């Protein structure tokens, strides 16, 4: 390789690298899908608090999930007429608070939240949590000690200790000690938490919500989390299953009461939930509005500008097609980048109506232009005349098309008129000087490039990528730069120089 070319290849690598990395970072951090039309599941969870108000001031305090592992909150709202509502955040503990000066009778408060399932990873905890102090009544204390001795003997680490304890506490196989503890005083989960803490394993009770599609009146279920090896491990105190199952939302983790109602009684907390699917793209826009990538993305612009950018970001691809067709293939086109403009017009009109109307306009234009050459006009005046005539042609075609019931008639107006006027002028001169053959070659070449560019731009994946990941245009830029360095033969030259195959080898 030529040493002087190293900076160039470096530049190419940097461009491709930057383009791909930025796109990948955008994909991973803002979850803009790489493929258009991707759908994502969303859980819509509705918490409902019912209580009887005493008639005075009411304060309802509901614990909210802080960092539910495996889920991400995308939206929350409360619907409770007449109540003031706020989400209070206190030392990473989020609580919803409803307040009202006077309330009587049955009150119903709603809290709605939308969660999307995400990959759960255990959250590392820096500080080892403190052990809870355990109090037992005297007979229970002995039973607990015995139970623990047995469990500890058959286990090696906190997780297995918990598993053994759950086995011992199983009502069908419980021994005397276990039965003594399994009273109504504690729930199984509370019992397990106490026993684990006594065994010097930090543990706490958590409240979890099992998510099943279209369920109503669900309540929070108690589960146990024990601290092992730097993070919390979830254990089902009934079955002994360890780890976080799918579709289990940890609503509250070891904090104070889930629900506090001041000024009311008979309070009840129930949940209903429904599973929805929403487009991943829309979801990404809702979630990451203040992300750096979103701010640098096109979606932060007004819709009108967005649609303009949609076109703009497709242009590099068209430019690349033109470069490829001219540099590598050697296709002749009328006007270097005229084909891109035509292909953009095709995007508005769709292919067949676009092609038909384009050929119609240029053909009629050529007829009119052949009359203009008798008038002996100055060039600029002639092209200006052509522009006016082209506008008339387009209007007439649109109107006729509309009256005949073709909607495509109206979209003809998307063709760049001045470009078309110039094309007609060039084609006409070409016709006079080189004959209709050359006109067909160059006109056909332009249309071929335009159609190829259109077909590429029309691929949903490509328009999705170019709009949502504009940085990918850096990759296109790199490809164009690389093609600009190509000094090999064009495909057309292999035909042009074909007679050289008769030549005997040079000495």
């Amino acid at each position, binding site marked *: 390789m030529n040493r002087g070319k190293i900076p160039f290849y470096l530049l190419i690598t940097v461009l491709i690298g930057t383009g791909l990395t930025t796109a990948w970072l955008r994909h991973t951090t803002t979850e803009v899908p790489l493929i258009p039309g991707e759908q994502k599941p969303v859980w819509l969870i509705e918490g409902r608090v019912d209580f009887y108000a005493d008639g005075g001031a009411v304060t309802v305090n509901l614990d909210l999930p802080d960092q539910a592992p495996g889920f991400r909150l995308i939206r929350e709202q409360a619907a409770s007429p007449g109540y003031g509502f706020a989400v209070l955040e206190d030392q990473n503990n989020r609580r919803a608070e409803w307040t009202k000066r006077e309330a009587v009778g049955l009150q119903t408060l709603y809290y709605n939240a939308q969660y999307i399932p995400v990959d759960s990873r255990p959250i590392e905890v820096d500080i080892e949590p403190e052990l809870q102090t355990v109090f037992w009544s005297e007979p229970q204390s002995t039973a607990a000690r015995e139970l623990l001795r047995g469990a500890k003997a058959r286990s090696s680490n906190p997780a297995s200790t918990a598993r053994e304890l759950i086995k011992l506490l199983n009502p069908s196989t419980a021994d005397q000690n276990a039965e003594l503890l399994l009273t109504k005083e504690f729930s199984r989960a509370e019992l397990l938490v106490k026993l684990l803490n006594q065994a010097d394993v930090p543990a706490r009770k958590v409240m979890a919500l099992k998510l099943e599609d279209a369920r109503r009146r669900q309540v929070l279920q108690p589960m146990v989390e024990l601290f092992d090896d730097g993070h919390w491990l979830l254990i089902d105190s009934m079955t002994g299953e360890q780890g976080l199952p799918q579709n289990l939302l940890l609503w509250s983790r070891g904090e104070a009461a889930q629900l506090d109602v001041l000024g009311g009684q008979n309070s009840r907390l129930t949940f209903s939930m429904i599973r929805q699917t929403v487009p991943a793209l829309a979801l990404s826009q809702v979630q990451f509005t203040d992300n750096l990538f979103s701010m640098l993305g096109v979606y932060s612009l007004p819709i009108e500008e967005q649609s303009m950018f949609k076109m703009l970001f497709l242009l590099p691809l068209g430019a690349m097609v033109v470069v490829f067709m001219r*540099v590598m293939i050697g296709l002749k086109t009328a006007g270097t980048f005229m084909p891109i403009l035509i292909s953009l017009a095709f995007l508005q009109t769709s292919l067949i109506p676009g092609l038909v109307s384009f050929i119609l306009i240029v053909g009629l234009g050529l007829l009119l232009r052949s009359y203009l050459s008798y008038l002996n006009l*100055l060039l600029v005046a002639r092209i200006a005349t052509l522009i006016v005539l082209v506008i008339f042609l387009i209007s007439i075609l649109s109107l006729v098309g509309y009256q005949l019931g073709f909607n495509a008639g109206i979209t003809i107006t998307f063709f760049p008129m001045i470009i078309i006027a110039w094309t007609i002028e060039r084609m006409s001169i070409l016709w006079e000087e080189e004959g209709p053959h050359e006109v067909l070659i160059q006109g056909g070449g332009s249309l071929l490039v335009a159609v190829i560019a259109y077909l590429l731009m029309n691929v949903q994946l490509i328009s999705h990528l170019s709009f949502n990941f504009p940085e990918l245009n850096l990759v296109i830029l790199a490809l164009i730069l690389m093609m600009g360095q190509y000094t*090999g033969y*064009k495909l057309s*030259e*292999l035909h*042009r120089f074909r*007679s*050289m195959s008769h*030549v005997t080898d040079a000495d």
Partner: protein
Amino acid sequence: MLISPLRLSKLGMLGMNCRNRDFIGRYNRRDLYPLVDNKLLTKFLAQEHNVATPQLQFVVREQHEIVKIEQQLANMNGFAIKPAKGSGGKGIWVITHREGDHFIKSSGAEITLDDIRRHMSNTLAGLYSLGGVNDEVIVEDLIEIDDCFEGYSFEGVPDIRIVVFHGFPVMAMLRLATHASDGKANLHQGAVGVGLDLATGRCLNAVQHGMPIEEHPDTKRPLKDIKVPDWHGMLTLASRCYDMTELGYIGVDLVLDANRGPELLELNARPGLAIQVANGFGLLPRLRQIEKLNRKHYTQADERVEYVMQHFSRLD
């Protein structure tokens, strides 16, 4: 229908991409382009350097000047009208003689003074110039075909294209107009291209429409017998065009006038593809050879011509 790229590169054929990037882009300074893209500037530059060109009669620069061309043309029988910024021979009208009020073009067509006026008006407006910029019209003397080309050209003047690289003529071709090319010397319009040996000016190979031929399609004269007279003078004239323009890679179009000898017709900053087919071999080895050469030893046109006559001979 296609030839393999490997075979082309073995023949040393120069492709358009390679020419544009490695030679035109590298050795032709952009600011010098107007010197060759504008025939009028080329003409003045040639006069400065004592390079012979066809005699200039007058120039039309503005639309209003077209009115008075009748007097200017009054005492001229045959003449050529050229757009100063035209390319590829576009817009060139050759008037061979007059018949009464009519002018006769080289193709035999009869035209009137009004046709000439309209043509000039179109030319001034930029019809033939790149990008449609305003242009000028050159009216100059006709070239009288030298006897040695008698029967080799149909309705047109044969011209000699020489590719000059750093002042070294590296390849030459004689272009003969045919009936198919409508009297024009453009190969892609059907003119005959005759590759010339650099040492002697004799025919190496001849093609029409990219295919080898043996005789002129209209006059049937065998092309093998062609030998350009005053070959050394031709090459020297071509070589001096490099000193004149300082463009590293140019095509020099020369004509041989029966009375005035070799004359510079025009310069071209983007030559070199068709000439290879006419010669039957590629330019690239010669270009690379000149690139490697220590060119400081060859400051004079004569020395450079000596070098190429010695090194680039294909006939023994």
